[in-house]
Structure formats: structure tokens, C-alpha cells
């Protein structure tokens, strides 16, 4: 399997050959930043296209099919449109917080990209507390959402932001606890270590029933954290016009939109890394020929394939179920998901012992 560390270390040596150590680091930081931003934008466009197509298929429609073959350029056209739109200045908003909120939301979701292992050797920074970092950073976005709701000086945004805060704080618990089950199983919080341990068998198979329960709970909780699907109370358009981003226009709204889609991908990517083996190919112990064939598929394809499978699950849920009421939402978390995930950790601990 191709190791991307060869490419990255070659670039590192190439830069070191004519730059000092400090400048090399600086150039590498800039390069990585550019690559992550480009990946972010491309993934967002791809996800918006996938979302619209899958949504259309669930409703027996065809979806975007006019711009480019099968409408693949539709989201690019939409991006150009949203970039050209006017930014409306709203009176009596808190100008600094109003402008800062969207950047907080988008920075929070870009930061997670730094720690995700996309392929063999393709990980920007390998923290020894990677899981902790992912959880911390991915839930930072709620600060931006709360600021957006508060600074817009509008009752709808305020209610939307409050709902979003309540939702994210409660669902963060069971998301964290279900990831903790995997940390118990692997005995490490380092993402590269977790992925390497899944070389023979993915954790969802290795961990038997507790891992599967943790996987399902993580998908539900993560889905709720992204404010989508049946948990889209913060932006329930029938009740709150557009929730916390009611007052935003043009690319300011676009940032929120982008962050929402990327959060969906990030949840899928974390679920892939923790439960479905990250970039590791599907290996079944004892089937040597099968394992060899699977090794030929590049690790990038494995990672993105599994992540998009999780994204499809999220879309499937989103277009199947009606929106929950706020008390149902909190009941589901505090009375069902959290007790189950606590018991699940106990089960996992017994299994590891």
C-alpha cells in the first residue's frame, strides 16, 4: 500500500536543502494550510452535490441535472452565485460579534482536519490525545453559533442559538462516552495508534456488541451535533425561519452552510477512524488471498469510501424522520442514549478485562 509519508518527507527534504529550519517549518505550515483549505472547499462542494442528489433520489426526483454532466457543476455554480451576492448590513447588530461568529464556526471545523488521518502517512499532526482534541475542537463550533444567535438582535436567531447550545452540550456527552468505549478497547487516544490496531480487524468487529452499540450511538449523537436531519431544531425553517443564521446573507451565510456540511463529514470521518478502521482495508483473519486483494486498493479510497458511507447513513436518516420536539430531543439524550453509553463503557471494560 502506498505510503504518503514518502511524498511528505521528500517535500520536507527538498525544502530543507535550500532553506533554514525555521523557514522550512513556515513554508510547510503555509502549504498544509493551503492544502487543508482547498480540501475543505472541494469537500464542501462535493458534499452539497451529494446531499442534493441523495435527497432528490429519496423523494423520487432526479435532482440537479442541468449544469455539467449529471449536474456535477451545480454546486460550483451555486458557489459563484453566493460569492457574488450582496452582504446586507443589518442595523443594531453587534458588529464585531456578528462578523466574528461565522469565522469561529468555520475555524472549529477546519481545525479537526488537522488531526484526521486521511491515508497512510497523510496526517498533519498526530497528537497523543487525538480523540480528545477532535472532541474538543469539533464542539467549539457551538460558540460561534451562540454568538451568531446573540449578536443578530433577533428573536428567531436567539431561540435557534439557545436550542443549538442545549442540543450540542447534551449530545456531546454521549458522543464522547461512545468514543471513550473505543479508547478503552484500544488503550490509546492517539489516532495513528488506534488506526494501526485495526489492521487485522476493524474495531466494530473486534469489539463485538459494545463497539457496535457505541458506533450507533456515536452516529446518532454526532448527527445531532451537526444540527441536521431530525435534530434540526436550531434552524427549523417552519418555526424559526432559518434559526441562528437568519440575519446572515451572501457568503456569511455560505460559511455557516459550509460548516454544517463539513461537520457532517467530520462526524463521518471520526466514526470511520474510530470504528471502521480509518484508512485500513477490510481484512478478514484467515482469508489471505482476500486480504491481499484488499491491500491493492489505495488507503485514500478506503478512508473516503467509508466516510461517505457514513455520510450516506446520515442523509438516509435525515430524509426519513420528522423533526423532534425539544423535550423529545433532550429525553432521547438524557434518558436513553447516555444511560446506554454508560452501560456500554462498562460492558467494554469487562470485555477488555
Amino acid at each position, binding site marked *: 500500500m502506498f505510503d504518503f509519508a514518502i511524498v511528505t518527507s521528500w517535500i520536507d527534504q527538498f525544502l530543507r536543502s535550500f532553506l533554514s529550519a525555521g523557514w522550512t517549518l513556515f513554508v510547510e505550515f503555509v502549504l498544509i494550510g493551503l492544502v487543508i483549505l482547498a480540501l475543505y472547499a472541494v469537500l464542501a462542494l462535493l458534499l452539497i452535490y451529494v446531499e442534493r442528489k*441523495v435527497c432528490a*433520489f*429519496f*423523494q*423520487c*426526483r*432526479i435532482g440537479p*441535472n442541468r449544469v455539467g454532466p449529471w449536474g456535477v457543476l451545480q454546486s460550483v455554480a451555486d458557489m459563484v452565485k453566493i460569492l457574488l451576492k450582496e452582504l446586507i448590513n443589518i442595523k443594531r447588530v453587534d458588529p464585531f460579534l456578528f462578523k466574528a461568529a461565522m469565522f469561529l464556526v468555520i475555524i472549529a471545523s477546519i481545525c479537526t482536519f488537522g488531526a484526521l488521518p486521511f491515508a497512510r502517512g497523510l496526517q498533519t499532526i498526530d497528537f497523543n490525545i487525538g480523540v480528545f482534541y477532535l472532541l474538543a475542537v469539533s464542539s467549539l463550533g457551538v460558540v460561534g453559533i451562540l454568538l451568531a444567535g446573540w449578536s443578530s438582535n433577533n428573536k428567531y436567531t436567539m431561540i435557534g442559538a439557545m436550542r443549538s447550545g442545549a442540543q450540542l452540550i447534551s449530545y456531546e456527552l454521549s458522543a464522547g462516552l461512545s468514543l471513550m468505549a473505543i479508547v478503552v478497547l484500544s488503550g490509546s487516544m492517539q489516532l495513528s495508534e488506534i488506526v494501526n490496531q485495526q489492521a487485522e480487524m476493524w474495531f466494530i468487529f473486534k469489539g463485538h456488541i459494545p463497539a457496535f452499540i457505541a458506533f450507533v450511538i456515536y452516529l446518532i449523537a454526532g448527527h445531532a451535533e451537526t444540527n441536521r436531519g431530525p435534530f434540526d431544531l436550531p434552524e427549523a425553517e417552519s418555526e424559526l425561519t432559518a434559526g441562528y443564521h437568519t440575519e446572515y446573507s451572501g457568503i456569511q451565510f455560505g460559511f455557516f452552510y459550509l460548516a454544517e456540511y463539513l461537520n457532517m463529514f467530520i462526524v463521518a470521518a471520526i466514526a470511520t477512524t474510530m470504528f471502521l478502521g480509518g484508512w485500513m482495508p477490510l481484512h478478514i483473519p484467515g482469508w489471505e488471498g482476500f486480504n491481499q486483494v484488499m491491500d491493492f486498493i489505495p488507503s485514500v479510497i478506503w478512508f473516503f469510501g467509508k466516510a461517505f458511507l457514513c455520510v450516506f447513513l446520515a442523509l*438516509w*436518516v435525515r*430524509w*426519513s*424522520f420528522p423533526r423532534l420536539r425539544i423535550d423529545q430531543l433532550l429525553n432521547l439524550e438524557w434518558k*436513553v442514549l447516555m444511560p*446506554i453509553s454508560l452501560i456500554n463503557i462498562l460492558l467494554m471494560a469487562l470485555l477488555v478485562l
Partner: protein
Amino acid sequence: MKLINYIANIFIAIFRLLQGMYITMLNLIRKKVTEQYPENRGKKEQFEQMRGQLVMPHNENNQHKCTACLICMTNCPNGTIQITTKMEMNEETGKEKKVLDTYMYDLGCCTYCSLCTWTCPQDAIEWSQNFEHAMFTRSKLNIRLNKEGSSLAPKNK
């Protein structure tokens, strides 16, 4: 007992949710219903009862069935149909008879209520399935239904 109910409820909920997801999955793989209009132009069969545009069918000898009884014109709620008649000498009997001169149909006024076709005693007018009515000028919507030089078809005996 409460605990058993709690656990049973969770399993029932999971089952119900899976049922819902199964139904949406059936929708996903079902045939799509969207019509891609300009591409499938002329390929798509319209419904038989569709009221597209009023037409007067003519046979191969350029003969129609309208006897100019004016029932359709009187029945039309908003004056869509304007019929002018003329007197024509019948060679066989030597008597003058009222025949249809022009049958003007204003598509822009028509509400497609179908009172004209229901009340026509001769079944001389009917609906076609043409629905592409857009024109650049209003006058083009004023259509003459009987063709130039057409005459009344002889009755089948």
C-alpha cells in the same frame, strides 16, 4: 417492571425507526418520476382526458361535422368561441341552408371548462393534447378551427 418497559420501548423504537428507513430506502431505489421536459418532448404520452386545446377534426375530404347550431357559442361562459355563419344554396333541393363560415376560438380566454365539447350534439369539436400554447403576441392565440374551404360532412345513413 418499569425497567422492562424502558428496555422494551427502546427495542420497539429501534424496530419502528428501521421500518421507516426501509420505506425510504424503497423510495430511493424506485423509478424516478421527474419528467425532463424539453428532452422528452413528443415522447411522452399525455392522459386521454387531458384538455390541451380545442380542435375540430376534419376527415380526408376536408369535411367537418359542425352544423353551426351555435350551442357551443351560447354555452361558453366567457365568450371564447365566436362563430360566423353564411347561407349556402343546396344544389339538390334548391333551398338555402345555414352553414359554418368561421369558427374562431380564443385560446387566451379559454378556461378549459369543456362545456362546449359536452354539449356539442354532433361531436364536432374535441380536445387535443397539445399544451405548448406560449406565443409572442396575443393575436396568435385567436385560432380558426375550421380549415379553409372545408364543408359539412354528409351524415352517415
